[in-house]
């Protein structure tokens, strides 16, 4: 191939591949503690514990929400379905007061984190999985496979999401599982695009040719050679999908299309809105869930940005 390369036929593909390899070389395995990553520790760029400050903040925030969701039964002061005196302002008995039914708002808030996280992660997992798979296949095989898969991606990009969810909510029994499933099935498109372009770049690198010359099958190459090399693209993409799915869940619940029997932050704001919380100025009813939504999304986004930033940093160093 060198002959043609010199003639300039494969030059562009190869040289971009080379740059990318260099970059990959810098982003290898943060967790292994090998010489290279230690070196980077010293330079203060990254490593699992040395996120930039916003990234660290995001991680802490996120961990606290995770804790809240997984041990809500232990943390919550009362059962969120038990009724006390309604419309109590924040005070010693109920730190954040009670709502129109007399439910303790702090407990509701803590239980509500579960739905947000499940929907966020469920949808993001599904969409990242689909997007990665489709992106890898279309980027690796190119040609007809690429045309078909990217055509499907274009079709999915055209589907208006919220209206579709509204229509489906009208016909199906609304539940947060369905919301997660739906969002996951709709949101893989951008991931697929990004993964495809990265795969197109990596498949032209010489170690892929090397693997082919060793007689490895296409699937083996895709999953053990290409996939590890695009993992650093997938992770931030995944976190950003988590954040958007959380917001989408909240907005769907706020619109009243969610599962009314489940406690979720969006549902709380919905009830506060429809049952006079806003008009009467019961700020302890609608403000905390709103803040929680913002903070949890912020935490995930901060982590995602920190990961993306990390890649850019290493790119600059190289």
């Amino acid at each position, binding site marked *: 191939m*060198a002959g*043609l390369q010199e*003639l300039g036929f494969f030059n562009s593909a190869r040289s971009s591949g080379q740059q990318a390899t260099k970059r990959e070389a810098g982003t290898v395995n943060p967790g292994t503690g090998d010489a290279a990553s230690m070196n980077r520790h010293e330079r203060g760029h990254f490593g699992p514990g040395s996120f930039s400050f916003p990234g660290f903040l995001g991680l802490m925030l996120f961990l606290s929400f995770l804790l809240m969701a997984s041990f809500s039964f232990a943390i919550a002061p009362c059962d969120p379905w038990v009724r006390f005196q309604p419309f109590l302002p924040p005070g010693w008995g109920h730190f954040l007061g009670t709502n129109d039914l007399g439910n303790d708002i702090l407990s509701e808030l803590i239980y509500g984190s579960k739905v947000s996280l499940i929907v966020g992660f469920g949808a993001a997992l599904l969409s990242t999985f689909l997007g990665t798979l489709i992106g890898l296949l279309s980027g690796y095989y190119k040609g007809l496979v690429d045309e078909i898969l990217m055509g499907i991606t274009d079709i999915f990009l055209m589907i208006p999401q919220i209206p579709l969810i509204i229509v489906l909510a009208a016909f199906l029994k609304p539940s947060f599982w369905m919301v997660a499933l739906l969002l996951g099935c709709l949101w893989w498109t951008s991931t697929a695009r990004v993964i495809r372009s990265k795969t197109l770049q990596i498949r032209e*690198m010489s170690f892929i040719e090397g693997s082919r010359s*060793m007689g490895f099958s296409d699937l083996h190459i895709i999953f053990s050679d290409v996939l590890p*090399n695009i993992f650093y693209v997938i992770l931030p993409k995944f976190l950003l999908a988590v954040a958007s799915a959380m917001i989408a869940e909240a907005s769907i619940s706020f619109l009243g299309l969610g599962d009314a029997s489940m406690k979720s932050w969006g549902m709380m704001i919905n009830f506060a809105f429809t049952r006079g919380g806003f008009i009467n100025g019961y700020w302890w009813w609608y403000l905390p869930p709103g803040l929680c939504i913002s903070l949890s999304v912020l935490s995930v986004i901060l982590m995602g940005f920190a990961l993306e930033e990390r890649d850019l940093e290493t790119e600059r160093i190289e």
Partner: protein
Amino acid sequence: MYPGISPEKHQQRRILKVEGLSVSFPTTLGSVMAAQDISFDLWEKEILALVGETGCGKSVLASAILRLLPGNAVVSGSVVFGDRDLLCLSEKDISRIRGSQISMVFQNPTLAHNPLIRMEDQIAEPLCVHRGRSKKSSRKLAEKVAISFGLEGGGILKMYPFELSGGMNQRAMISTSVILSPRIIIADEPTKGLDDALARQAIRELSSIKEQWGASLLLITHDLSMASAVSDRMAVMYCGQIVEIGLSSEVFENPLHPYSRALKGCLPENGYNPIPGSSPSLIQPPSGCRYHPRCSQMTALCKEAPPMMAVAKSSSNSKKIGMSGCSDDRHESCGRQVRCWRC
């Protein structure tokens, strides 16, 4: 097989027969004839060097044998390995041959490794995939092979490719390519990107493969003196064609084709004489003998394409044979062939 040949020669059998192999790439400017009508045989346990300047189609030829060319390449001719034509095999069958029967050593060893996989796993990977061995036992074997190529100590095998030097990566790649004991190893400019000392070492290791692993080696290089030092036979390529093929000692000592002669004249010990003119375009190669526009001994006849012609052996040459190569009057493939009207 060949009655009357000494036992050592008797074992030598043809394992790869390339016949009339042509590769072209359609482009918007026209078709690039990267290789045209290439024919040669590769014998068991021999090192065949393919020499030529950059851009003459050497690497394309190597990739064509293993069918690693991009999808737009147009390949014709035949590559017979065993009793099968590699160019006609299904993708599944050819991938069984890749690595386990014919493997490849690439130029630029650092880039030819996956940057995110530890060295030992990369060396062991073919064993897991082709032989279905467990990860643990393949790692053990990989370690043994790597040690035989001088990769040991300091946890080298636990490192990633970018932590190793070019020479180490090259040795790791050679280990990977021999681990399944293939019958043919194609080394595509194995010394490119290595400094002189490392290049020598890499070549030593490659030529040891022949003895240790019993494989034949197709060595692709532009280094004429290196090729003549390690190879049994040598083929000189110019502009997509083989212009001269024969025993390395003969070709190097007494090149017949004007291009081989000019190539030899480029060597530092022969006075760095550059070849006049520049490499021809592969899209519109010169008609007739492709070397004629640059040839100092051009005649009117050179405007017509010369065929590959067998050279009658002169008595002075025959004394130099009998090293490790096959003696050339026994079978015709070892005979010297030149693509020039004057010879």
